[in-house]
């Protein structure tokens, strides 16, 4: 116990020393590249800090450790405050204040937009929500929750119906024979192109059968037996192809993110590559 504690203190000291060394070297490097003294020291500190935080997160891949814990807790605190500030300035000061009070608008230097009485509705509901903190009037907060849920239900119902449902259904109307030109051309060209009718036709067939059987898989009130069972089986297979394909397709995007981070470490911080 005592020994492991000593080791971790040594590692901590080492980290701090490395941090300071990196800071000094980086500020020298920035100064030689023509940056003003105090600015270089500041930027060197920030770059070093960002690099150490990056490494702290990466260390989680090995195992949970105090450096990750530090980065995580810092991240949680900073980010919670970040969204509070953005919400306060953009929504509260930007959308709410100008509609209810000219003097407050002047204080926050936002142009007033004319008084609108119904903007007191969210104010009242917001205060009701805060009633949660009191044990006696806590039930009032449910009124605001009811308002939120009602809004959600009303807005989403039509939105999904319009965009997802009707559009997707109409997109499934595809011709089953694409540009039929006779049997000869059909069976002689299996290229992925407009001239490969067989492939295009197959694609449309797969779309139609896939949507059909996929929907059958989502039938809840019918036992999946007989024809239904067979169709829903096919439905699962189509879904599996979808999942596998989407998974494989995203690998490139994910690797790009890692490339971005490593580029920061190798070039912005260490200056190994340009």
């Amino acid at each position, binding site marked *: 116990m005592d020994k492991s504690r000593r080791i971790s203190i040594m590692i901590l000291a080492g980290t701090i020393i490395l941090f300071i060394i990196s800071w000094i070297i980086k500020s020298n490097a920035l100064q030689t590249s023509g940056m003003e003294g105090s600015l270089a020291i500041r930027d060197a500190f920030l770059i070093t800090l960002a690099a150490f935080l990056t490494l702290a997160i990466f260390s989680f891949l*090995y195992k949970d450790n105090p450096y990750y814990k530090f980065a995580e807790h810092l991240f949680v605190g900073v980010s919670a405050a970040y969204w509070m500030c953005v919400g306060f300035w953009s929504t509260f000061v930007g959308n709410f204040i100008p509609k209810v009070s000219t003097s407050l608008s002047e204080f926050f230097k936002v142009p007033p937009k004319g008084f609108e009485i119904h903007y007191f509705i969210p104010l009242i509901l917001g205060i009701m929500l805060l009633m949660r903190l009191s044990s006696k009037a806590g039930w009032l907060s449910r009124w605001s929750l009811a308002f939120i849920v009602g809004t959600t239900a009303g807005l989403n119902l039509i939105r999904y119906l319009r965009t997802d449902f009707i559009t997707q259904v109409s997109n499934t109307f595809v011709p089953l024979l694409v540009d039929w030109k006779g049997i000869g051309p059909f069976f002689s060209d299996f290229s992925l*192109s*407009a001239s490969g009718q067989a492939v295009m036709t197959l694609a449309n067939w797969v779309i139609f059968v896939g949507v059909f059987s996929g929907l059958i898989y989502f039938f809840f009130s019918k036992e999946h037996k007989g024809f239904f069972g067979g169709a829903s089986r096919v439905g699962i297979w189509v879904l599996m192809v979808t999942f596998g394909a989407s998974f494989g397709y995203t690998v490139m995007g994910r690797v790009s993110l890692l*490339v971005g981070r490593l580029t920061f470490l190798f070039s912005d911080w260490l200056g190994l590559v340009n």
Partner: protein
Amino acid sequence: MNNIGIIISVVIIVLGLLWLAIRSLTGREVERRIIFLFMGLAVSLPLIFNITFSEKATPVVRNIFNKIESLPAGSRILISFDYGPSMAPEVEPMSNAFIRHSLAKGHKVILMGLWATGQSLSATAVQDIIKPEFPDKIDGVDYINIGYKAGNQGVLNVIITDFRKMYATDVNGVNLDSVAIFKGIKSLRDMDLMISVGGGFPGVKEWVLFAADPGNIPLAGGSAAVSAPTYYPYYPRQLIGLLGGIKGAAEYESEIKKHYPRFADMPTPGIKMMGPQTLAHLIVMAFIVIGNLSFFFAKRKKIDG
């Protein structure tokens, strides 16, 4: 440096994978940290040692290359910049490669854009590619940048009958009637090849529907990986070829490098970006194979035992 780096990386990765494959033949699982380590190596080694892979062009890409090759020198090629800065990392290598190839082959290049943001990007291409790399090419004779005009596909509707109705001058305010390159050009129909680079609206699709199809003009495309699959129904009748995402760009770059010794040292962001990508994909595939190996051998062991 480069060679040593490649050797070191290949040795590390190949030996490591071999060791893992042998281990998994006995049905043992690989620890997660080893997978992480391989992934880290697969991405960082190509970055540090600048490792690249030579791409073999798919027919969709090679068709465009062959088309530009087969046109007689002095043909007119129009390149439209239909993208903005956010899409640029993916498609800018494409427009640069097209410009290099066309100019090296001796074609006349006309740059334009259907996106407002495309104008500054085409100007950048003139500044960074044409001027330093082709100092003998003259603005207005060998190439011209006519810039962006508002109107989306409406612009195409106009210039398919007459350029001068939309474009009176180039970006520098020079009258199109006074430049040599525009002598004898009335409309898009006088182009020998049009290339649209971009992946949004307006983009390749609009070029097909409003220019290539009605005017029966050869069109090639370059687009972000996200939208590339949606353009395949136009290939090869309305679209002679298509570069999809950074991989398409890398294939085109390697095709140029193969045929043009003068471009041996040109920057190839496409190929470069594909380095870590390719290695990472190979690692993921290798782990799928190793995972299945250990799964099957573990199962067999269980049955035997």
